[in-house]
């Protein structure tokens, strides 16, 4: 079987995973929190955008409102709850975000329902380019471009600004950074804000490429975590590549009949193999 069409197909999903993975890594580097609510933030953004378009609001405005709300929720959590958990163990901080994820998921399921046939249409869905004989929709190409642009922008923020310097300082050593006057809460809150923004955009793209469903969007975080682990939760370019690899693997496994019905596990298996090859010492726990 020719695998190239599946590589092309994996580009869109890979871009969403890459965007999500980068969003997770930015926050983890700055605050040491692995945000399990990332997918739920994205879900809120996508559902709000869809709801507003149903009510006649133009798609561009709806999408901006959706992303703004997910960004606002993330910022509020980063400002109100995260500082109170800052001195707790990383596992406790991660589990707290899991609680937030389930709360938001429950809210979406209650208000918008589960298993309801609905679609979030983007005007770019039916424009396409042919790649390896596959129609690659403009939406998927935009997802890739947005992922690359946002990663570039964050890279510039980290390397060229005082805020970026503060983020890098926190990532290096939180206690020393606080002692020398880095404004920890502000930097943390900004990392949450960026996390919410990435989640909001990824949520809208995934809702379009795949499915506008509370469960699908909330659990977007799971393959994104696998991709972030491939980047050892520290490297932004690594997170991007990890996300693209996760999307490609999921797409390519369709071509393997024995594994096709388990392909959602592909990103984890890839992350496990990666950790085994690279070594656990340089993996998740390396920054502790």
């Amino acid at each position, binding site marked *: *079987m*020719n695998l190239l*069409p*599946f590589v092309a*197909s*994996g580009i*869109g*999903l890979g871009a969403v995973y890459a965007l999500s993975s980068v969003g997770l890594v930015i926050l983890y580097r700055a605050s040491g929190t692995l945000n399990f609510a990332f997918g739920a933030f994205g879900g809120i953004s996508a559902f709000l955008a869809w709801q507003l378009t149903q009510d006649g609001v133009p798609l561009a405005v709806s999408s901006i409102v959706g992303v703004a709300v997910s960004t606002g929720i993330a910022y509020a959590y980063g400002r109100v709850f995260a500082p109170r958990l800052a001195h707790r163990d990383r596992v406790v901080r991660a589990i707290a975000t899991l609680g937030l994820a389930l709360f938001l998921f429950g809210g979406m*399921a209650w208000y918008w*329902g*589960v*298993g*309801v*046939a*609905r*679609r979030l249409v983007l005007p770019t*869905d*039916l424009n*396409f380019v042919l790649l390896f004989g*596959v*129609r690659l*929709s403009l939406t998927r190409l935009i997802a890739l471009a947005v992922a690359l642009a946002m990663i570039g922008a964050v890279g510039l923020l980290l390397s060229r600004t005082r805020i970026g310097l503060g983020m890098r300082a926190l990532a290096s050593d939180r206690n020393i950074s606080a002692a020398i006057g880095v404004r920890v809460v502000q930097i943390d809150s900004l990392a949450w804000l960026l996390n919410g923004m990435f989640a909001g955009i990824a949520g809208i793209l*995934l809702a379009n*490429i*795949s*499915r506008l*469903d509370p469960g*699908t969007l909330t*659990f*977007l975080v799971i393959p994104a975590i696998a991709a972030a682990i491939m980047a050892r939760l520290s490297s932004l370019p690594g997170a991007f590549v990890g996300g693209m690899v996760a*999307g490609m693997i*999921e*797409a*390519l496994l*369709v*071509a393997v009949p024995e594994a*096709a*019905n*388990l*392909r*959602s596990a592909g990103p984890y298996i890839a992350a496990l193999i990666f950790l085994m090859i690279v070594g656990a010492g340089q993996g998740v726990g390396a920054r502790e």
Partner: protein
Amino acid sequence: MKSAVRLLAVFAGIMLAGFVSQAQAAPDCGENTGQKATGKPIPIGAVTSMSGIGSFKEADDAARAYFDCVNANGGIHGRPITYHDEDDQSQLDVAAQAAKKLVGDEGVYVMIGSTSFIECIANADYYIKQNVLEIGLGIPSQCFQSKNIAEVNAGPRQSGIAGADYARRKLGAKTLVCSIPKFPGSDYSCRGLEEWGNKYGVKVTSIYSDPVSPDYGSLVLQFLATGADAIMIYGTDDTGARILDAAEQQDAAAKMKWTTPTSYYTVRFPAAIDSKYWNDRLWVNAELAPLDSKGKDNQNWIAVMDAYGGKALRDSFSQAGYIAARVAVNAMLTIKNPDDINRNTVTAAIQNMKPYETDILCMPWYWGGPEASEHNPNHVTRTVTLHDGKWTNLEGCVADADPGLANIEAMEKKLGIQISDTAK
């Protein structure tokens, strides 16, 4: 004076017409006494997937609406029905626990309206041990091959074969893909299509997809890579709609004929896809009458839902839940003494019931007696398509071409059951 009398007569006529039209709109439920039932409650249960890989609450909602209507009209000889439905979360262990709670703790007499991907797998043997019958909507083989379960729906195997057979008969398909999400028991449907293909000379390729993966684009590429003439895509209408979106992006309707089972035949589905692209290019099996059918029983379902159903979705699942509830009520009403109504007598009453004639189904719904070891009373169905954004009937009732129905057809011949006159 004359004009005053005439005016009075006209007024009386208007009042009478209003009364008659009100009486016509009132639903027909049980004994129709208009009196609220106040006796000892009759517990009835359902185990339904309300979360997990699918959500199917519509049949429960319709059964509850009909029972509420019966309770407001004398109940079962004065005894009201209490309806308990549990969510199996699409998980086998949860489904087993839910059945034990309902049958063991609540002591339900019969299970009505259960709709689930997995419930029959978990509970078919348990129901036999407890002498409890179940009438609902089923998906895996255990729902159609158990002594104690008879479903109102035809089932995915029958519905898929009917849709595929339409593609063979009317669209000239010689090769076909059977696509279904992988879950316990899902191979029953595609195996049925493979058996049908062997009999009718259609090459069937089965594709089992990951129900969790959000990547529908690659799945469509996998379909197209087979080069098949047609496809039967199993699944719920919401995931199906997204697969069709991905298919549209590849202009896949120009490359193969797309058919679906009845789960896509919902009121919301046309708005969930690009109806212009799929206009006259999607063939859907319909196991029950059109939702707007003017048939007497279908109109009664609408009246019941309007009066007691609240905002519950009106779809094929809802029609089936109504039939399940109505069959159970009719059977229980044959038990003359209300004090004699218990699990054993309800089981016997349903097993020995007269076939229920309804215009919602193509054939009467029947149990087949206490000795019947398998049940598939609905296997004559219709085909519809999307035309101008609306469901349009393509052909009337056609008997299913499943080679596995030999025993069922022999039983029906013995019982003298044929396609309903009202459905022809």
